[in-house]
């Protein structure tokens, strides 16, 4: 069991080094980001503990994936396998538990502990034969596959919008609005196989424009209803809402060009730093997007003449 965890540490370190960041620095950055995010969420909404629980849940489900667990079961004895799974989940939940304890959210702490242990015993099948319907079937793949992976988060964003109106909390409404965008950003984190770029009979410029156009159109399916709802109930804030809409779309474009600017490699530290800068000062995107667009063209040139 000890060897299993030291192997996991080795694997994680390797992954961080591959993207060009020292593992210790990566952990410090992750913890800092987590603390900053928690402070922000707790400042903005009273539902923060539940958002934290859901956030942890989304990480824990990845470890509970059935194929991964079947593999673990084949190499470890059953009691050892469950022990490993409980420890894994608790390690993952640990920073979130500390945050919840810090904010005296004891109910959420209990809930998180139950979930962490429960998910260690219960495996989750993520590769269903049942096909989840999607509104994006005409233009696969980012939105089609992405929607099926994250569909449960969309109703959550809508619920938050409803709550924001019922408790008259505009900030929570904007949070739900941005949550939808964050879901969409996640569709562009990983580069696709070269074959799926190569097969396009377009040049780099039209390929990138096609990707951006599709993303803007498809993201609007779930963004527009929230936009209209917030505009109706907070009409006096219409300019702020529109500003956040522009910011959301701009970051969506950012993620597309960032992904292809490092293609076929994954998004690296440099893009992460640029992203952090852009979050603090979004107008910088006006310079960064064209810059990354041009870099993307260079990176895609060998596949799309």
């Amino acid at each position, binding site marked *: 069991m000890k060897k299993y965890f030291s192997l996991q540490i080795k694997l994680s370190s390797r992954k961080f080094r591959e993207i060009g960041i020292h593992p210790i620095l990566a952990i410090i950055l992750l913890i800092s980001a987590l603390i900053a995010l928690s402070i922000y969420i707790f400042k903005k909404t009273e539902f923060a503990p539940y958002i934290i629980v859901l956030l942890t849940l989304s990480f824990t489900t990845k470890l509970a994936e059935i194929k991964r667990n079947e593999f673990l079961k084949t190499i470890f004895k059953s009691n050892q396998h469950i022990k490993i799974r409980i420890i894994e989940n608790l390690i993952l939940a640990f920073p979130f538990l500390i945050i919840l304890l810090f904010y005296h959210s004891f109910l959420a702490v209990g809930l998180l502990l139950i979930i962490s242990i429960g998910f260690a015993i219960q495996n989750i099948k*993520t*590769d*269903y*034969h049942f*096909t*989840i319907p999607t509104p994006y*079937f*005409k*233009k*696969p*793949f980012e939105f*089609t*596959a992405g929607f*099926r*992976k994250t569909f449960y988060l969309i109703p959550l964003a809508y619920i938050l919008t409803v709550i924001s109106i019922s408790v008259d909390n505009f900030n929570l409404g904007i949070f739900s609005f941005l949550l939808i965008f964050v879901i969409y950003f996640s569709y562009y984190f990983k580069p*696709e*196989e*070269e*074959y*799926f770029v*190569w*097969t*396009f*009979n377009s040049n780099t410029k039209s390929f990138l424009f096609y990707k951006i156009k599709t993303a803007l159109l498809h993201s609007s399916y779930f963004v527009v209803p929230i936009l209209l709802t917030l505009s109706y109930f907070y009409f006096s804030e219409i300019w702020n809402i529109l500003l956040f809409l522009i910011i959301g779309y701009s970051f969506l474009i950012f993620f597309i060009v960032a992904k292809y600017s490092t293609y076929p490699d994954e998004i690296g530290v440099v893009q992460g730093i640029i992203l952090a800068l852009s979050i603090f000062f979004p107008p910088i995107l006006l310079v960064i997007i064209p810059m990354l667009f041009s870099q993307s063209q260079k990176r895609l040139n*060998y*596949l799309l*003449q």
Partner: protein
Amino acid sequence: MIKIKNLTKKYGNKTVLNNINLEFEKGKVYGIVGENGAGKTTLFRCISGLEKFEGEILSDFKPLKNYIGLLLTNPYFFSRITGREYLQLLCNARQVEIQDFEKQNIFDLPLNQYASTYSTGMKKKLAIMAILLQKNQIFILDEPYNGVDIQSNLIITELILELKKLNKIIIISSHIFSTLNETCDKIHLLKKGELIKTVEKENFQDLEEEMKRKSIGNKVKEMQLK
């Protein structure tokens, strides 16, 4: 026509393909054979533009890659993409409009099921169907018969012969010699990255005998199995 002139491919210091010269004409089927690691897949990737190389590839089709339907040995499928969506994606990429995929579903694939859950053979059939629907002019098929059932094997052979009639260029690699015998006009033999022989249809039988002799030899007997 495709003309390959002095193609050399190196990975670092290792030469994977050395000074390859080949010509592929319309309406003909070409077989590329050789043992594992001979450079067949690398050659296909170079022709398709997936790899950089030294030398030249000349063609009437410009840019060449836009006319190629490439079947990889192990086609990749995104998780949570149905067979139908995979076909749609590849058709969109080449601006081909197809309304009814069901009509074209000659392999009777469950198109509404996630492609990642398909068996090896089904995945291969889906990938073949996709490049056929793209209406390509050149077909590069890397191990098209691998993992495919006998009925589909017959369909694939029939498809290749039909594509030949339609004046397409077809390049196949396969370890199943009988299928090459049925479909190919010419077979090129690769060994350790070098083109060592080109065989015309009338001499396929001799090539098969020679390959058997050379690859098996006394190796099995030497193991002294008991």
